[in-house]
């Protein structure tokens, strides 16, 4: 539908005109935004603004034409029914997403879209929902729901704090690295102590909505990668993360 282009609802010009703007695309904000995923977009936008950069927030909804010149992609979680609604559109834009991923575009994929960026979702009743094969992983629907606070450690990002709520259990292919090792919580599945996946400049995780606010190291990885690809450099100074540190410390002390 060419009459329904992606919205450019939130555009913030750079505070420092020499610094330029990044174009951030949120995938399916209506169906795949059930656990505060917009928070991840907001964190990216504000951390850019605090450093003098501009941000243009684009949305891709079903039926929209996929926009050009995307610097960073954010995908969230949703109901199982939401995944069914977006399935055909996601397959239609899959070649673009695969191209961008292979080219090194930074992406954050949470929960539902983490699953659908894999090879397939085998639901509990035996149906196979095809993924788009960006990430070499498979997900199987389980009877047990994995819910609760999570603490995980990663060499790249340090300690990662968040909250998981999923019934799908994800198993990574041989070539794919997990994002982190779980210290508290379940992570990808009930058998292994792995959480999320890392591939090229993609960070994928089951930790929903609150991932980036309390994990600014991941936010800055995505921003740095996008800025360096676009501008050749990233000025990452001037952000006070002391509240995030305190929020992390308190979250880490909470029961599962």
């Amino acid at each position, binding site marked *: 539908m060419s009459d329904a282009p992606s919205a450019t609802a939130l555009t913030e010009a750079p505070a420092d005109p020499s610094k330029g703007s990044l174009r951030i695309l949120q995938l399916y904000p209506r169906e795949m*935004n059930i656990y505060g995923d917009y928070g991840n977009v907001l964190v990216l936008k504000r951390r850019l603004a605090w450093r003098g950069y501009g941000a243009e927030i684009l949305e891709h909804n079903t039926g929209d034409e996929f926009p050009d010149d995307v610097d960073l992609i954010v995908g969230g979680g949703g109901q199982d029914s939401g995944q069914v609604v977006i399935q055909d559109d996601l397959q239609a834009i899959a070649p673009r997403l695969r191209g961008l991923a292979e080219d090194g575009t930074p992406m954050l994929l949470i929960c539902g879209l983490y699953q659908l960026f894999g090879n397939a979702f085998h639901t509990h009743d035996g149906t196979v929902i095809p993924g788009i094969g960006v990430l070499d992983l498979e997900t199987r629907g389980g009877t047990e729901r994995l819910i609760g606070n999570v603490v995980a450690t990663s060499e790249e990002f340090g300690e990662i704090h968040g909250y998981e*709520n999923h019934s799908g259990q994800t198993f990574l292919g041989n070539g794919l690295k997990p994002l982190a090792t779980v210290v508290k919580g379940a992570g990808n599945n009930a058998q292994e102590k792995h959480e999320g996946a890392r591939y090229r400049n993609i960070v994928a995780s089951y930790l929903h*909505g*609150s991932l980036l606010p309390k994990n600014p190291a991941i936010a800055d990885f995505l921003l740095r990668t996008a800025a360096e690809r676009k501008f050749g450099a990233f000025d990452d100074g001037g952000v006070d993360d002391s509240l995030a540190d305190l929020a992390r410390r308190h979250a880490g002390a909470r029961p599962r």
Partner: protein
Amino acid sequence: MNPLPVLVGKAVRIASRLRGGGSAFPGLVVERLDPGFMGRALSTLPHGVVVVSGTNGKTTTTKMVVELLEGQGLKVFTNRTGSNFTRGVAASLLGDVDWRGRLDADVAVLELDEAHAVHFVKLVPPRYSLLLNVLRDQLDRFGEIDATTRLLERIALATTGTVVLNREDPRVAGLAASIPSARVAYFGLDASLRSTFPNDDELRGAKGTAPASALPADVVLRSVDGNAASFEVDGAITHTDLRLRGVYNIFNAAAALAAARAVLDGTADTARLFSSLAAVEPAFGRGESLVVDGQALELVLVKNPSGFRLGLKSFDAAGCATMVAINDNYADGRDMSWLWDVDFDSLGLGGVDMVSGVRAYDMALRLTYDDVRVGAVEPDITAALQQFIRGSEGRPKRIFCTYTAMLAVRRELSKITKVEVVS
């Protein structure tokens, strides 16, 4: 019938009250001794049982339905202690039945938690049910919002008379399709108000908000202006002032009117319904107004993004000292992600004077990302409240709080001021 279980239950109830203990324990005792007690006590009521459920607004709506029916001369039994599960209902019943286990009432209006309602309706099929909404609340208990919808469906399926549904909530309105025999009645909103009540799929701005539903509604909220509202019933519009505050409470008033009308089945005195409605006071912690240091202090319970958004929209921040207290105990929901789907811009001008609760730093971080000034962060609610009251002398105060934070705030406030006591 053996009266012993009732007598034992009553004795346990008196004993546990003397100890200041939990309200549900006597219910457990009588359930064990006499599993048929509740069903028997509730099965003989001439107007049957009304179950009120949904994720948001149960307590206030139940209170409204009770007062509307009492205003029509009915004797109403309800679970006022807020024990909104089966055992809590049994405990409340013990206080009201005679020694033979008989309840002297015309109708029972019961607030039931979504999950416990499923258990309850198996024991006592309700004649009426009022299903308010399915908002993103307690997903750490139910997993998915669609799973919560299925719980409400079970209540609807067990209802023998009329199911009253919110036509503006697509998940609730959608239940009509699966109800085989009961009558269905709707309450709804005027199209002009539709964007004020985004459902969970519409949290990314009013831009995508669907228009008001075209389903025929028994009661429609036509307009809201502060504490005044107009409702359309039977083609006639009634304007009324309300003591209830908050647009969400006023929408729930439409729900309560529709439920009361269903119970009264064409015999309602409409003028009297509205005079009863105008007199309803807010329930425990739901927009309650207290007085501290000669200044108004309002408690606004917030549990999920839609509720918090409506709370911010309902109460003007101008000139008011603001505190936010966020806990993540089991009764609050452990997941803090929802704070990121609330838009805090309306607090931007005055800022937030105090942020407290177990997850105070998550909340302060959230406000910072909306460029809202945070005066102080103190996770300990007692210390925070003292500091907040000292620092906001001469100004009206408002505290947004999650459920267990609200209990803690009330406990502290009761040491300073007179706080309404709910039996």
